[in-house]
């Protein structure tokens, strides 16, 4: 084993620890070999007749160059694969192209160049009927500014996708009521969107996207309008659903804590390009670019990094005594790390096998926020 075990393999090989990660174990079967969504060299250029720079896109024109011809690259040269059951969180500053990327993946807008493969089919080449069919059967989306139909009641809004599927009224109303109960809007079903607060409207949007049990679920800042309490509740609910449904999720947020709670992988975007797409730990511990480092500098590392990530081979360290669990973050272990007197603490996986040793000094440094 190397000095630093690969977190990807760890997170998939390590069984869950109940005391560990949030309230829900991370035992999702992320199957990298079977990508649900894959995109290659995706470009989305806004402006007047963007096709005129099409030929120059493979030589990667700079933003300045594009601006001179009156164009903005909202998504530039993005290649991603999202595996079945994986949850990808997209982050980045305002205007970095997150919403545009998701709109491209759902083909709400046509890309300027590049291909998007969803379940083995190029959605750019789909006919309108095929696309409608795909959306009716597989996709759901929560919109940043809700996109509710103002003339329909809450329950009719939630039932709208079912109506498009052609379900009869009583079935779809029953299903919609179920979804409303799930997001805590029971009793408001006959309200109109205008009569709800922003957070309530957002929950209607979430309920609507859930009504069809989407296999592919796009969420554009779904919790941004919620107050901290409800947000926390919704996140828990969300994690529970995620565990149950095993659907593939692309999730946009500005909130790093949220990203850390939810993400399998995080993609960081800047000016349309994906700077890094990796597990939370890797993003924090080994940022690919200076921008990512800066972006994550305020993050409390101890809450991201797990014991396993800091473990070095146990031989020769003399680590002994009670081991700590590999899946726990340093924050979870803080009290132990501070009060323990050993220089090295053994790290054990769920079966109790020692897989390495934790350098206590390094862990303390990290806990105190000093550069490791």
């Amino acid at each position: 084993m190397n000095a630093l075990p690969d977190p990807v393999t760890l997170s998939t090989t390590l069984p869950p620890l109940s005391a560990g990660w949030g309230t829900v174990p991370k035992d999702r079967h992320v199957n990298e070999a079977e990508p649900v969504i894959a995109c290659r060299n995706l470009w989305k250029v806004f402006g007047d007749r963007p096709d005129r720079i099409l030929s120059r896109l493979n030589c990667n024109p700079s933003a300045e160059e594009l601006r001179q011809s009156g164009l903005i690259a909202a998504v530039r040269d993005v290649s991603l694969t999202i595996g079945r059951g994986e949850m990808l969180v997209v982050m980045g500053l305002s205007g970095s192209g997150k919403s545009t990327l998701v709109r491209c993946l759902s083909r709400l807008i046509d890309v300027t160049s590049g291909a998007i493969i969803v379940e083995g089919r190029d959605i750019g080449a789909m006919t309108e009927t095929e696309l409608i069919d795909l959306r009716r059967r597989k996709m759901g989306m929560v919109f940043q500014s809700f996109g509710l139909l103002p003339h329909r009641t809450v329950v009719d809004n939630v039932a709208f996708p079912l109506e498009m599927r052609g379900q009869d009224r009583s079935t779809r109303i029953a299903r919609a009521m179920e979804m409303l109960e799930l997001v805590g809007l029971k009793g408001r079903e006959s309200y109109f969107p205008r009569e709800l607060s922003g957070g309530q409207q957002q929950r209607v949007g979430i309920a609507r996207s859930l009504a069809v049990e989407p296999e592919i679920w796009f969420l554009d800042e779904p919790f941004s309008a919620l107050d901290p309490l409800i947000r926390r509740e919704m996140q828990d609910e969300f994690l529970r659903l995620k565990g149950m449904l095993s659907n593939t999720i692309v999730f946009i947020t500005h909130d790093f804590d949220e990203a850390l709670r939810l993400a399998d992988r995080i993609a960081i975007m800047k000016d349309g390009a994906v700077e890094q797409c990796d597990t939370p730990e890797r993003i924090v511990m080994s940022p690919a670019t200076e921008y990512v480092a800066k972006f994550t500098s305020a993050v409390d590392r101890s809450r991201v990094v797990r014991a396993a990530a800091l473990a070095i081979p146990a031989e020769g360290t003399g680590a002994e005594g009670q081991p700590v669990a590999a899946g726990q973050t340093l924050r979870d272990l803080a009290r132990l790390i501070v009060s323990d007197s050993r220089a090295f603490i053994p790290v054990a996986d769920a079966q109790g096998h020692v897989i390495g040793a934790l350098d206590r000094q390094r862990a303390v440094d990290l806990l105190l926020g000093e550069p490791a």
Partner: protein
Amino acid sequence: MTAGQARVAWGLVALAAALVMLRESLPSGLVRPPEWMVLPFADWINAAFAFLRDDLGLMTLTRAFSDVMEACLDVTANLLYGKNRWPHLGPIPWSVIAVSAGMVGFALGGWRLAALAGGTFVWIAVMGQWQWAMETLSVILVATPFSVALGLGFGVLAWRSQAFERLLNPILNIAQSMPHFAYMIPVVVFIGVGPKAAAIVTIIFSVPPMIRMTLLGLRKVPPEVVESGKMSGATRWQLLTRVRIPTARTDILIGVNQVVMQCLAMVVLASFIGMPGLGQKLLQLLQALKIGLSIEIGITIVLLAVMLDRLSKAWAMKQPVHHMPGVRWIERHRLLLIWLGLVALTSALAWLHPYFIEVERKQALSMAGPVDASMKVFIRAMTPVTEWLRWFLITWVLIPLRDAFLWLPFAAVLLLLAGIGWAVGGRRSALVCLAFFLPIAMSGWWDRAMITVYMVCVSVLVAVLIGVPAGLWGAARPVRAARLLFLCDTFQTFPSFIYLIPVVMLFGVNDVAVVASVVVFATVPIIRYTIEGILGVPPEIVEASSMSGATRGQIMRHVQLPLALPTMMVGANQSVMFSLFMVIIAAFIGTQDLGQEMQRALSSTDVGKGLVLGFAVAFMGLMVDHLILRWSDGRHRSLGF
């Protein structure tokens, strides 16, 4: 304005002035359009129409359409005033209609609207005008749905296809600046006269605003709402019918409001093509100078206008409200049940006593007799004043001005317009002005057109002289401003015809009456936009200048007026449009302008002539519209709004 632009503009104006100076020694070809310039547009149009009618067999198509129209009209006529046609149910007693209108008013806007709607019908009934009012309403009731459907259809098409929109836009522009009469003549040719023709001309006239509002509404639908519809798997048709149109509801219903108001205005005017009803009665009474009855009918028309406007606006603005869960059916449909109860009650009343079915004329509460008598006294008392005013205005203002306008060499007028165009928007605008005015010279109606121009100029000038101070006075206090705006809003809902009643009463039938009615009609938008312009000046700017020690007068002159000017110019634009319409309508009380010719074309059903005259009026309006829009665009840009 750049320096070069100003130089060219002044050059053109100076040239025009030189032509005016040298008028006596000009060749006649510069004073009036020479023979070779005047083209027989009217003959061409007539030939085209003859081709459409006879060779293309359009006649059968229009006949078929008018048969459909007639069938619909028969139904409403039977229901509203008991015409002996299918479904042989009517007439619905007036008391039933009045309580129903009251209930609709209550459902849409509470007690006040209920009182307005119910009260209007009670007034109509007890004043003995039921038959006439119902004749008018029966046409509106048929025309409105057709217009709305057509407007919605064309609006959706224009929204779908850019090419179609580009084609439609200029047509709509011209259509919306054509005077009412210009629409009537082709309809008379194809359909004839009577309610059928009135309904069709009303539909054609009221479609354009519906198209515009549909287009506007569909464009305004938030993209995320459409996207959420797409992600729900909606097809294009489902997106249109279940997402886009419902979301654009308010704008579309405002379009309906405009359709209703246009319909009312047109139906009243359609009396000129044999439409019975309120308009025809008013026309006859005015011509016979029966003031008392005209006032009563005028009040009816005004009440109908205000009621229809408020009801349809309330409908547009009404947002759905939810019911609490567990509310019983009876509670949810309370209004419906109350309405049914009231209908049963009034039907019983009507069954007991025929007074509640229709009020006969001899039972009517009409006060025409006493009103006429007191009016006679009043008018006699006013006669010295009005006589003098009339004499003074006609001999010292109107006739000299008219002669001056007629005296101007046509080349000088064109040069002057080109100069103004150049000053406002450079070469392009100069060319646009010429393109609009040259055809008027080429139509052969130059003198008539100049008389129209003179009347519009005088009226708008007087309207500005009255309207701007009134607006400034109104804008000084918020409460006053709100009241005045409300008043202007109400006045703008009146069909233009109404404005003739008081002026005919005071001045009789002549030029002064025409100018006076046009002035009244044209002052309303000036007052309104002056107030809106002044209120729209950002308060920080006013506060900043009063902190710099400016007096109220100084603030008004140096801050508020300049900043409000672009908005005020929008008012001036509307004022010019209204004046043009009104001058043409007022023709029947005696003018010698394009309007009079238009009336002649109408009575001799000369399509070519009528349309040429209509285009002449439309082009005048469009030219002013272009100039003012260009000017205020430039102004807005330089003010940085």
